[in-house]
């Protein structure tokens, strides 16, 4: 039969070990935020690379038909505009240090979440329509050099790729990103609240 004093003694004898230091703790928290920044930056880099590749195509290859120039122009403008939109969102999450201005960071994170939602929904369809129009114009001249089978393969693969991006890939990206941002928001909301007032037991 144990008394409370013995239980207390047992508790105090049990040494707990904190596995990280103050620095590591802040670093760990920053790592989670940096994960989101990194993915966002990767998105921009990918878009910028596409922009450069298409611009290079325009500069280094000679095209005869005006339709090809229209097609490339539409594609390159679309990619450029979307890269800027992505950059604007990226700025939202990098301009505030969450350890210094938690409330501002949280507000920015919520705006970022809303912007991403628009980007993957209404804006995405504008992007898809613009890109498809650009590709159609581009194909008019390019496909004239191909035989029938090559034409079918090129159109078929392009169509399947667009379909894949608009359905399976888009849904997976939305789901993953939604979860990641929601988790961060949830965490920061918890962190921002309830500092001074104790909850009544």
């Amino acid at each position: 039969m144990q008394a409370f004093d013995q239980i207390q003694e047992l508790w105090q004898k049990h040494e707990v070990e904190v596995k990280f230091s103050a620095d590591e703790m802040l670093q760990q928290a920053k790592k989670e935020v940096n994960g989101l920044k990194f993915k966002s930056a990767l998105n921009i880099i990918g878009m910028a690379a596409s922009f450069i590749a298409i611009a290079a195509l325009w500069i280094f290859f000679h095209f005869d038909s005006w339709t090809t120039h229209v097609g490339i122009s539409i594609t390159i403008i679309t990619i450029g505009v979307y890269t800027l939109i992505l950059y604007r969102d990226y700025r939202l999450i990098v301009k505030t240090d969450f350890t210094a201005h938690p409330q501002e960071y949280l507000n920015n994170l919520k705006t970022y979440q809303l912007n991403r939602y628009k980007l993957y929904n209404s804006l995405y369809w504008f992007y898809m329509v613009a890109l498809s129009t650009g590709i159609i114009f581009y194909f008019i001249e390019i496909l004239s050099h191909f035989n029938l089978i090559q034409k079918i393969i090129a159109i078929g693969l392009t169509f399947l790729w667009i379909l894949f991006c608009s359905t399976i890939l888009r849904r997976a990206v939305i789901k993953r990103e939604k979860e990641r941002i929601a988790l961060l928001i949830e965490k920061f909301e918890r962190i921002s609240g309830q500092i001074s007032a104790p909850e009544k037991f």
Partner: protein
Amino acid sequence: MEQKDKLFKEIFDSNSKKIFHLCYGYTGDTDAANDLLQETFLKVWQNLDKFRNKSLISTWIYRIAVNTCLTYLRSEKRQAKDELTENIIENKIEEFSEKNEQVALLYQCISKLEENDRLIITMVLDELPYHEIADISGISEGNLRVKIHRIKQKLTELYNQYASV
């Protein structure tokens, strides 16, 4: 900023162990306790400038930790984990039963207490003065004494009951 860093490190070094013990007592899970410790000290870091020396800094940190613990498991994401708390503790027993069966049993008994009681008893076990616990929990000292007496009894009963099985 450097001064804030230095101050924060001092505060972390002198309080982190106790806060971790509180979180561990509350959840019975090392990972969850680490998460809670991190969240608590992030709040401390962010609000260090607002601390006005009206109370002891340790009391202020305990208050943040207690609120963090309560909110953590109540949030929707952690509900499932909350329900698993007992299971986690029971599983942990096997892990360190050979090393310290009695300590494992104690954590298991704490997990059987109500959420708020778990936090209060953890502070009592860590010998925090009653007036500080009252301040942290927002209960009058008179009521707290009655509550602590009841929790102590319950914990002792639970412990002896499980120890005799």
